[in-house]
């Protein structure tokens, strides 16, 4: 009984000891905050990576892919069919995106990924990262609400906004083309070398004034039919233009200039040429998007811009959904470029800048077609009846029923699929992003070691102060022993004293740490206000708020570790107290 009473009284009267555990408190609080933020970051990062990657990926070593996806899928089914919930093919290839912005053409290197939206939807939660399905918030101000439900399955449809953008954009492009044309004419023919170079010098009389309405079908330049027309007209068959329009007057240089621009993009046009006249008869609305449609990583086409006047940073998008861009990649077999135009359906923002500033997702069949991995069954209707199974794919993405079996699946696939030739690489998403995830794990481990050292240092503080208290209390220890207290009892006083200090210290630390984590964004806002500098810049981290994830086990272990250190630090002083000789202790004045 006396042990608790005396330990309790010491606890209440020795404030210096409480001071010594402030460092324990701070250490515990820091560890909880750091671990929560780190695991918040890493779980967000994993979510983001996983949004793009599937559980397991089977990739061909060769960029030409495997020509027989049916066989590959059958093999996978045979090897690990029981574990696989869904599989979807992709084609991954390097490429380049180009688009007009501010009067100049912007080029960006990209990785083009051909996907089947339905399949992609099944293997990874990619759809939720589409910008049209997210709110856009800037400085706590809602700029734009969701345009689509985030849970809607992925598809290549344009949103109403994108349609409206597309309409405006096409009209603007038409107008600009006409204006350029007029302007070019007024200047002098010499000042417009592209026209001359492209062989448009054959163009008949220029009638800019009349061309406004008539030029439209040509100028939208976005539907493939028009591309075909343009392709043919450049080939010199001027008649096609007139027949197509049913009007002879508009074989104007407007369309020619347009043609010339489109021409470079028509990598897949050559074999369609003979049929274009029939195609044009069934002309589709020019406002309709092109058959090749893409999701573009937001980072590829945007950049932050700080408004000097308001001091606010906003994102400037150089392309908007609904516009067309040009994609260039390589054909299979030979190193030959293949270009095609595609309509931007949406942007995606996974939050991993590696992906957002690099990836372009395209519909699988169109990419296969462009690369010559797939040929249309009916050349007269090149965009119909396409089936990716007939072409080549470069990878299969698998969704597993249970991710825990991933290691097993990978092993089976590695040994089952061409074990000797090395045609395929099989990786889980974690292995694919291994170095990054490992770096984060390593960082977190090192931080934990360092912070735990801080708590250990605090432990030595406790040790020193406890020795002091034992010296100060030598006489009292002698009295207790004279009154019959055992050595173990005296030791227990100091051990329980240390234990109580540890519990108080780490308890307060846990509360402080959890409060800090809970209100970390308010703290960040305050620090930003106080220092006048943004502590956590959302445009750098892609997070609006600092992500945190509190793991109860982590809190438990940190608190327990601190308590154990406090108890260990009190062992030596407690032993010293227990070994004090009562007579010497009583003589001590």
């Amino acid at each position, binding site marked *: *009984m*006396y042990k*608790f*009473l*005396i330990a309790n*009284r*010491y606890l209440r*009267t020795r404030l210096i000891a409480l001071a010594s555990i402030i460092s324990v408190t701070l250490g515990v609080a820091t560890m909880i905050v750091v671990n929560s933020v780190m695991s918040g970051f890493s779980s967000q990062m994993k979510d983001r990576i996983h949004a793009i990657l599937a559980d397991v990926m089977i990739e061909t070593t060769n960029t030409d892919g495997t020509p027989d996806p049916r066989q590959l899928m059958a093999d996978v089914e045979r090897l690990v069919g029981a574990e696989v919930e869904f599989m979807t093919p992709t084609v991954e290839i390097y490429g380049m995106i180009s688009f007009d912005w501010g009067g100049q053409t912007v080029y960006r290197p990209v990785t083009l990924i051909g996907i089947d939206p339905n399949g992609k939807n099944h293997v990874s939660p990619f759809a939720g990262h589409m910008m049209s399905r997210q709110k856009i918030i800037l400085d706590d101000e809602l700029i734009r609400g969701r345009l689509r439900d985030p849970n809607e399955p992925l598809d290549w449809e344009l949103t109403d906004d994108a349609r409206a953008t597309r309409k405006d954009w096409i009209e603007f492009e038409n107008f600009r083309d006409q204006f350029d044309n007029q302007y070019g004419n007024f200047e002098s023919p010499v000042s417009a070398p592209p026209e001359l170079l492209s062989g448009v010098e054959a163009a008949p009389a220029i009638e800019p004034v009349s061309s406004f309405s008539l030029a439209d079908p040509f100028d939208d330049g976005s539907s493939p039919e028009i591309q075909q027309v343009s392709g043919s007209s450049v080939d010199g068959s001027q008649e096609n233009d007139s027949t197509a329009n049913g009007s002879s007057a508009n074989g104007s240089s407007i369309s020619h200039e347009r043609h010339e621009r489109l021409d470079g993009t028509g990598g897949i046009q050559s074999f369609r040429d003979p049929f274009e006249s029939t195609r044009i008869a069934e002309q589709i609305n020019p406002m309709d998007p092109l058959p090749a449609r893409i999701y573009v990583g937001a980072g590829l086409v945007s950049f932050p811009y700080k408004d000097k006047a308001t001091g606010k940073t906003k994102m400037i998008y150089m392309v908007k959904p609904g516009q067309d861009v040009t994609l260039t990649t390589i054909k299979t077999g030979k190193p030959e470029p293949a270009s095609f135009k595609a309509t931007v359906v949406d942007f995606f923002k996974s939050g991993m800048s590696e992906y957002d500033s690099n990836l372009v997702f395209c519909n699988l069949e169109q990419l296969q077609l462009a690369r010559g991995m797939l040929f249309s069954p009916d050349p007269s209707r090149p965009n119909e009846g396409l089936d990716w199974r007939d072409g080549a794919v470069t990878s299969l993405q698998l969704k597993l029923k249970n991710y825990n079996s991933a290691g097993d699946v990978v092993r089976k696939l590695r040994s089952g699929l061409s074990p000797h030739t090395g045609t395929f690489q099989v990786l889980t998403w974690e292995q694919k992003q291994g170095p990054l995830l490992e770096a984060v794990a390593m960082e977190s481990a090192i931080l934990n070691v360092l912070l735990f050292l801080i708590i250990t240092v605090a432990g030595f503080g406790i040790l020193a102060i406890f020795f002091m208290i034992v010296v100060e209390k030598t*006489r*009292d220890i*002698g*009295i*207790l*022993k*004279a*009154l*019959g*207290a*055992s*050595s173990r*009892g005296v030791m227990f006083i100091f051990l329980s004293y240390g234990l109580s200090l540890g519990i108080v210290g780490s308890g307060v630390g846990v509360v402080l740490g959890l409060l800090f984590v809970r209100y970390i964004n308010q703290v960040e806002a305050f620090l930003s206000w106080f220092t006048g500098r943004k502590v956590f810049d959302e445009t750098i981290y892609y997070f609006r708020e600092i992500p945190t994830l509190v793991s109860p086990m982590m809190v438990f272990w940190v608190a327990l570790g601190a308590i154990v250190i406090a108890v260990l630090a009190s062992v030596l002083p407690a032993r010293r107290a227990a070994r004090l*000789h*009562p*007579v010497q202790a*009583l003589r001590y*004045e």
Partner: protein
Amino acid sequence: MSQPSVISMNEPVHLRAKALDKSYRKGEHKVPVLRGVDVKVNRGEFLSIVGQSGSGKSTLMHLLGLLDVPDVGEVWLEGTRIDNLPERTRDELRNNVFGFVFQFYHLLPELSLLENILSPLMIRYSIWEYLRRKSELKEQAVEIAKQVGLDHRLRHRPSELSGGEMQRAAIARALIARPNVLLADEPTGNLDSRTGGDIMELLHKLNEEQQLTILMVTHDDNIARQAERIVRLSEGRIQSLNEAAQGVA
């Protein structure tokens, strides 16, 4: 007053020191403190050990009270040798058989007076037993505080008490354990003569009313003479046994 002596005839001596030797180490040198001391203490006796500073009287008391172990010699209680018992048993004996009163009172400054008085019982009982019997034990403590005249000061800290009050509290603390022998080391040494007289009066009262065996160590002959019997110690040896104690003789 003859009764105690009759008992002591039939029973073994209450507390007895046999040829105690004790020396302390000071660096290289061994400093002898006691050299073959024999003391018999009878039940209900008020014995004072008197001697100058350094004569070894405190050490003798510590050895008798099991606070220390003799180099040579034995300590017997009721016919049982107690100096060589295991530490746990010695702790228990100190708690149950001996009550200590010190010159500097040695109260625990963190505890209230009541808690100080209760401390031997807190040490004796486990936490559950103590809590179960708490009110009963508290009553005992209040009762004993009344005996020493401190019942109006129970909630005070030792630092708020006067020297005399602190010594009374220390005596109350020694008494609550219902000891067989009270060992008092210069109980009046730090008090003025009047307060010291009060304390001596209290000790006499306890000795007479409760037949409590008291062994008092002092350097002051005037104080020593108030005891029944005096043992004079000089340079670690007994000078004279049974020197007349004026009060009783």
